[in-house]
């Protein structure tokens, strides 16, 4: 595998890391929305009862997203570390291979040194093969997490719609209605933002797949 391919695999993972680093801020926003919704539902009294359920769902949504992000960050970190090791090993392999070529040209180095260099190259190649072998598992886990977040986004969008419907039937004061409408809008915006992030992660995951396919050919 070429140095460029290794670099590409590392760059894409770091790109995913940058994208998902934006998610905790959004999940905190959602958590804040849930607190505000809780307070507004309490103010609405009996009429806000049905909103209590939706508020709890928003809260849970924020928790689950935060948990998924945490897990994904760990996964990407682990992968990035492996890719950095692979790149470093590749450079080491290059150094040994250059030394071996130089020694071969001069023909003056002893056989023991030759075999040590060859042995080190073999170890590096085997290590890199093993590290690369873990990539499909990483991709599968990450894709599962991205899918989970996508499902949660969908749920957030449904909750937002439900809040809007509930608010429309509320007979309470204009202030509570305004607050709930605003919260529903905010939740929808947060979902939209997360959808954008997930799409970017998807693109990068596809790029990793493509790079792996290219080097396997």
């Amino acid at each position, binding site marked *: 595998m070429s140095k460029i391919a290794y670099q590409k695999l590392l760059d894409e993972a770091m790109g995913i890391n940058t994208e998902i680093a934006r998610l905790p801020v959004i999940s905190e926003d959602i958590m804040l929305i849930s607190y505000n919704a809780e307070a507004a539902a309490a103010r609405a009294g009996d009429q806000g009862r049905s909103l209590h359920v939706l508020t709890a769902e928003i809260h849970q949504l924020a928790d689950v997203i935060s948990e998924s992000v945490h897990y994904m960050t760990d996964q990407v970190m682990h992968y990035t570390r492996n890719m950095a090791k692979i790149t*470093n090993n590749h*450079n*080491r392999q290059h*150094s*040994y291979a*250059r*030394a071996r*070529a*130089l*020694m071969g040209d*001069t023909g*003056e*180095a*002893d056989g*023991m*040194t030759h075999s*040590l*260099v060859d042995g*080190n190259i073999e*170890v590096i190649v085997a290590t890199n093969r093993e590290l690369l072998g873990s990539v499909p598992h990483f991709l599968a886990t990450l894709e599962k997490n991205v899918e989970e977040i996508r499902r949660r986004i969908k749920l957030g969008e449904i909750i937002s719609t439900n809040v809007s419907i509930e608010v429309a039937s509320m007979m309470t004061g204009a202030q509570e209605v305004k607050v709930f409408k605003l919260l529903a809008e905010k939740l929808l915006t947060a979902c939209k933002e997360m959808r954008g992030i997930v799409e970017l992660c998807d693109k990068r995951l596809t790029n990793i797949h493509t790079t792996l396919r290219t080097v396997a050919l």
Partner: protein
Amino acid sequence: MKAETLYEHNGHQWIAFGRDPEKPNFVIDTNEYMVMSGASAMIMDPGGVEIFPEVITAISKFMPVSGIKAIFGSHQDPDILSSLSLWLDMCRDAKVYVPWVWTDFITHFGCDKSRMIPIPDEGMPIDVSPSLKVEAIPAHYLHSSGNHHIYDSQARIYFSGDVGAALVPPDFTGMFVEDFDKHIRYMEGFHRRWMPSNRARDVWIERVRPLKIDMLCPQHGAIFTGKDVERFLDWFSTLELGSAVEPKEVKPHAA
């Protein structure tokens, strides 16, 4: 890469490596040294990762690298030791001797700490083989805050790390100083900039002058031989160190 035998007596040998015409021009020129005694050897400041293939190839012409039992790093700089992890995978029995203050820094080059032998501030003897002991001599603040040199009293060779270093032009192909006065132009700027302490220099000169030194071997530039060793010490003793830049005149970029 050039290899120059500096000393040879009964299987005890000093070899200097350097002046590689193939060296990429984006890395500073360095000299590497090896002292051999029978089937064992110690390499000194083996260099950066960029020149590892050339250095190991040059060394392997003299002995199997499995015979390298010690790797000495005068200090922590990348041009000294960034190839360390590559060397350690080649020299499975080798121990790494480095100033104690740098051990936890040098591990960032990818080196197993259990293979390191921290050199205390006062220096220590290092066994190259059962019949050859060399001495790690303190040279702190010249230029690094934890810095040692190597003295071999049998060969009367002193490996001086960055002391005596010179930034020679690409057409300078010799391994030795041939005209001391002309050579000053290549080393003056280096010492004024990289060497920060007159006091440390004075202590070091006092420590080194009584030693019997036939060759003073720096990590950059050319080797001083014979009377040039004394000339160098005289010249160095009067140089104003830490004077290449006037700190007051350096205006921070943000200012």
